[in-house]
Structures are given as structure tokens and as C-alpha cells.
């Protein structure tokens, strides 16, 4: 980090550099590269978009992809920005900006920057973010990077711009996990949040379901059927090492991490039925959380770790309930309809995403946990597995289009809609990973 424009960002830069090192190791050690890339199509736009102009960075043609293209795509995909066409400009982080033409284009924000070789195959990317109406700089950063880090650097810049302009953290540098079924083969893939850099962490001829990120993003818990029955594994992404943490007699499924990463909630049938258990993350110390003669499944910790949401048919139909992580009385949360499943609390704990069946359609819905009001967010009818982005703004889920599994994302207010698909493959079981620092 040779260059720092604003002192408060210095520590952020150091974290970023450390992160790149970790990321590079992770990518190098991940298993076989996946051939099919996720492509993202925006199918609905949000309101109140911030008009932003991202000027091509001076010298960025030395890198592939071009940094400004990735920043622009990230901001547009979030649904919170309207990116303005700038055309080639003779503008960089070292220029004095004439704001008049940008005011003329009604731009609220302007991003300019440059990419400069610093020797040894490394580059420095510098940029400045301006508030156009105020004609003031909102921030600036510099990164040193290798050619391979162009995309990751662009995501970091987009995160910075997003946070400065919306007040929320961006998720462009996060990753997603999902399962692709191609013919008889199942692959657990990890990709950047924009679908790029898809890598297979696990390839199997038997099904893989229910991937769940550890809170630090280094491991995935999931259910694999490679032993002709469901067994819960924990898989370290960097080393590829995997361990069966729940392989008891009967079925083992639905892993969920506690927010401190020390415990897993799982569903075991070893004592008959499908029942909730808590265990240490290494699989030791399994203890029953609840006792019922009904199905209890799909546990998910509240972000404060104090309670666990789950699906149960103890009331006669599958509905969503909540229990303290220490056990105790159970509270029913859904009453409307005969099929409400897969509870996923938002990162701030205020909302609950779940799947609700309404007249034969399965739709991702959101409950405001304070008012208990529910509304459907999607216009698709075969929704499964909702997963909040770590900033709570988007919900990734699986659905079907023409009998083919695709991933889709919807903003938590329902305004922005996207579709992510892999050519010639069935995609399902998405899980959005955590912030990485």
C-alpha cells in the first residue's frame, strides 16, 4: 500500500492486501475449474437509482477484464445505481475534474482512476470518487495488484463506491456456493458474487445438498449422499480437506453454523424421526435440542446466536417456529397457508425470508419480524433455498425456468430481480457467503 489518499482508509488497505493473499491461496488450492460460468441477467430494476458515471481508467487496457467495466457492471447489477455512458474521456485520478459536463448528464457521482505499472508484473490501481452536485471528493484508494487480481480489485473499488454512496457495505467481493447437476454429475461450485471464477470444490456422482458457509468463509458444511444415505461433511475450501461430522445411523442433514462458528445445528434421525441436534463443529458432543414426534428440520441460527429458526409439522402442516438455542419453549411464527418452510433470518435479524406455498406456487416471501407481516417477493413459482446477501439487501434463491434449475436473486424490497444460469446445467441450493474481513 504505497499510496493512501485518505488516512482513515489506510487500515482498510492493509486488510485488503491480506485478503488478496488469502484469496490467491484459496483459488490456487481449489479443486478443478468449473467450465460452465454463471451468467447474470437483470430482470427487474429498483426505483430511486443513483446516477453514477464510471470513466474508463487510464491505462486499464493492460488488464483483463478492464477495471471500470467490472465496477460499472457491479453497480448496475445491485439495482441501486443507474450507470451513465461516459465514452472515452481524457480523465484519471490525477486530472483536475471539470464538473459542468457531468452535471449536464445529471450524474450524482463520478468515478475516475488509472492503472500504472510498478514493475515486477505488478500494477497500482488508483481511483477517486466525486460527489458531482457538491463538486467534492468523497474518497480515494490505491491498490497494488497482479494481472490476476484485476477483477478482485475492481470488486473492492465497487464495494467502496457502493458503501460511500448508499451507507451500506457492498457485497461485490463476496462469494456464493451452489450445486450444479449436469447429467449424472453433481458439483458443489464456488463463484464470485457476480458468477465469475466458478470453481468446483467437490464433484460427485451422488447428490449434494444444503451447503452452508462457516461464518469466516473458510469452510462449507453440506450434505452428501456418496454413502447411499445423507451424511453431513465440513469441507475446508483452501485445503480441500473434508470431514464427515455427522455420520450417525439413519439420516444426517440440514447443517447450520452458529454465528461464532463453533457449533452446528443438524437434523439426525438416529433416535427415530427427523430431530434437531446441536454439535461441536468437529462433530463431537451431539446433543438433542428438541424432542417431538413431528418432523423438525431446516434449523438456522438467528444472527445473535440466541435462537434457532426451524421448520416443523408439529401443528399438522409444515410451518416455521423459533426456539432459544439453549432449548425451551417453541414459538410458532407462520400461520397463513399450509406450507411455510426454509426460514432464513436477515443479517440484521429484523426480517425472515422463507418459502411459502400459495395456490400451488412456491414463492420466496419475507416476514417483518416486528409486525409479523408477510409479503411474497418473487414472480416465479418453484422457489427454494433463499439465502440473504451478507448486507441483507438481496436474497439469492433457486427456482425453475422451463423445467430447468436456475438461481435468481431479488432485493429484499422486491424491486430488483436477477436471474443467474449455467448453460446446459441444473443449478440449485445457493448459499451466499459472508463478508471476508
Amino acid at each position, binding site marked *: 500500500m504505497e499510496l493512501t489518499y485518505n488516512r482513515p482508509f489506510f487500515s482498510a488497505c492493509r486488510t485488503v492486501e491480506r485478503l488478496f493473499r488469502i484469496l490467491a491461496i484459496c483459488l490456487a488450492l481449489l479443486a478443478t475449474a468449473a467450465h460452465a460460468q454463471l451468467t447474470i441477467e437483470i430482470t427487474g430494476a429498483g426505483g430511486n437509482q443513483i446516477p453514477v458515471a464510471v470513466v474508463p481508467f487510464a491505462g486499464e487496457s493492460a488488464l483483463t477484464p478492464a477495471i471500470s467495466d467490472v465496477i460499472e457492471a457491479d453497480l448496475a447489477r445491485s439495482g441501486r445505481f443507474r450507470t451513465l455512458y461516459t465514452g472515452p474521456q481524457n480523465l484519471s485520478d490525477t486530472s483536475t475534474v471539470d464538473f459542468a459536463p457531468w452535471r449536464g448528464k445529471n450524474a450524482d457521482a463520478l468515478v475516475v482512476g488509472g492503472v500504472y505499472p510498478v514493475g515486477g508484473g505488478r500494477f497500482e490501481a488508483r481511483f477517486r470518487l466525486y460527489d458531482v452536485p457538491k463538486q467534492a471528493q468523497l474518497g480515494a484508494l490505491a491498490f497494488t495488484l497482479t494481472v490476476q487480481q484485476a477483477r478482485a480489485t475492481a470488486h473492492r473499488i465497487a464495494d467502496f463506491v457502493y458503501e460511500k454512496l448508499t451507507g451500506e457495505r457492498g457485497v461485490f467481493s463476496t462469494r456464493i456456493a451452489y450445486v450444479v447437476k449436469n447429467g449424472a454429475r453433481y458439483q458443489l461450485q464456488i463463484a464470485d458474487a457476480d458468477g465469475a471464477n466458478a470453481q468446483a470444490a467437490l464433484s460427485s456422482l451422488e*447428490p449434494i*445438498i*444444503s451447503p452452508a458457509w462457516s461464518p469466516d468463509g473458510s469452510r462449507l458444511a453440506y450434505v452428501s*449422499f456418496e454413502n*447411499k*444415505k*445423507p451424511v453431513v461433511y465440513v469441507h475446508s475450501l483452501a485445503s480441500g480437506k473434508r470431514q464427515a461430522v455427522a455420520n450417525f*445411523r*439413519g*439420516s444426517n*442433514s*440440514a447443517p447450520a453454523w452458529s454465528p461464532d462458528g463453533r457449533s452446528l445445528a443438524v*437434523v439426525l*434421525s438416529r433416535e*427415530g*424421526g*427427523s430431530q434437531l441436534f446441536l454439535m461441536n463443529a468437529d462433530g463431537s458432543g451431539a446433543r438433542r435440542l428438541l424432542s417431538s414426534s413431528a*418432523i423438525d*428440520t*431446516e434449523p438456522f441460527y438467528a444472527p445473535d446466536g440466541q435462537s434457532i429458526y426451524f*421448520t416443523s409439522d408439529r401443528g399438522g402442516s*409444515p410451518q416455521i417456529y423459533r426456539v432459544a438455542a439453549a432449548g425451551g419453549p417453541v414459538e410458532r411464527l407462520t400461520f397463513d397457508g399450509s*406450507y411455510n*418452510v*426454509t426460514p432464513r433470518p436477515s443479517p440484521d435479524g429484523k426480517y425472515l425470508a422463507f*418459502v411459502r*406455498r400459495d395456490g400451488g406456487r*412456491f414463492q420466496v416471501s419475507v416476514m417483518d419480524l416486528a409486525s409479523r407481516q408477510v409479503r411474497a417477493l418473487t414472480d416465479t413459482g418453484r422457489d*427454494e*433455498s433463499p439465502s440473504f446477501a451478507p448486507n441483507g439487501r438481496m436474497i439469492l434463491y433457486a427456482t425453475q425456468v422451463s*423445467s430447468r434449475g436456475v438461481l435468481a436473486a431479488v432485493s429484499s424490497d422486491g424491486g430488483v430481480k436477477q436471474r443467474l444460469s449455467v448453460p446446459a446445467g441444473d443449478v*440449485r*441450493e445457493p448459499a451466499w457467503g459472508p463478508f471476508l474481513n
Partner: protein
Amino acid sequence: MRRALLGLMAAALVAGCASTGTEEGSGVAVEDRKPGAGGAAGSATSVPIGTTTIPGDPLKDPASPLAKRSVYFDFDRDDIKPEFRPMLEAHARYLSSTPNQKMLIQGNADERGSREYNLALGQRRADAVKRTLVLMGAREAQIEPVSLGEEKPRCTEQTEDCWAQNRRGDLFYSGEF
């Protein structure tokens, strides 16, 4: 006495010749019998022989009720329908008569709705099949009920016919899965 002895020897010789001739001429009939059931070469065919059939592996006999391995369920149900009871009784008898035999029951569910909830529905079906077999005489420890949920559908079209085929429990003995 000597003459009588000579006569017996002659008769034995004749019988020996005759038996050799018969054996050569009726190879097909002998092959039909399971190995070990027939006597040593040279035994007299004039003695009436009852056909002994060594039972093959009853698990591999397509005519045996044990050949039936699937129990089907109604939508969102896990009760065993009456038509599957005779088949389950045969399996329970077999398990109770072969205490070392182990069974895996894989429960399945149709594809609609949540994968994990469907896994639990499949488990409930596998548990129901196990409970029935234990009530009919199988030992608890012989049977492991597990679920494949909606993950291994036998039929992949989105029709009620197809879904009905996927609401199923499958029985496997050791070495079959």
C-alpha cells in the same frame, strides 16, 4: 453258493454296463440336477431317485415375494397401505430367520417443496417401513432406515403419475447398495 455268487457278479456287471450306458445317454437329465444332488457315477438308475432342489438365494428368486422391494405412499402420507403387507411379512420372516442379515431402507419423496423437508418426509416413510417390519418379527438392529428425499427420483416428469412413483420406500439387503 459259488453259482449264486457268480450269478450276482454277472448281474452286477450287467447293471454296471447298463448304468454307464444310461449315464451317457441321459446327460441332459443329470445336468438339470443341482451339483451334489446326484450320486457318484455308476449308481444304479434302477433305484428310484427323488429330485432334490437346493434352494437358490431367495433374494434373487424373481418368483419370491422377497423380490418385491418397493412400498408406495400417498401424497404427504407415511401409512403402509394394505397391499404391501404380504410383501413386508415375507421380508420380516426372512429377516427373523436370518439374524445376521442387514437391511437398508431408503425413503423417497416427490420433488415438490423444500429439499430438506422432503428428506424428512422420506425418513418418515423409511421409519414407517422399519416399524412395520419390526412389528412383524424383524429385529430392530437389522434395519437402518435412511432418506434420499427428492434427490433420486425414479421418474422425472412433473406429473402426478410420476410423483406417485417417487413417494416410495426401497428395501435393500447387505451387498445390494
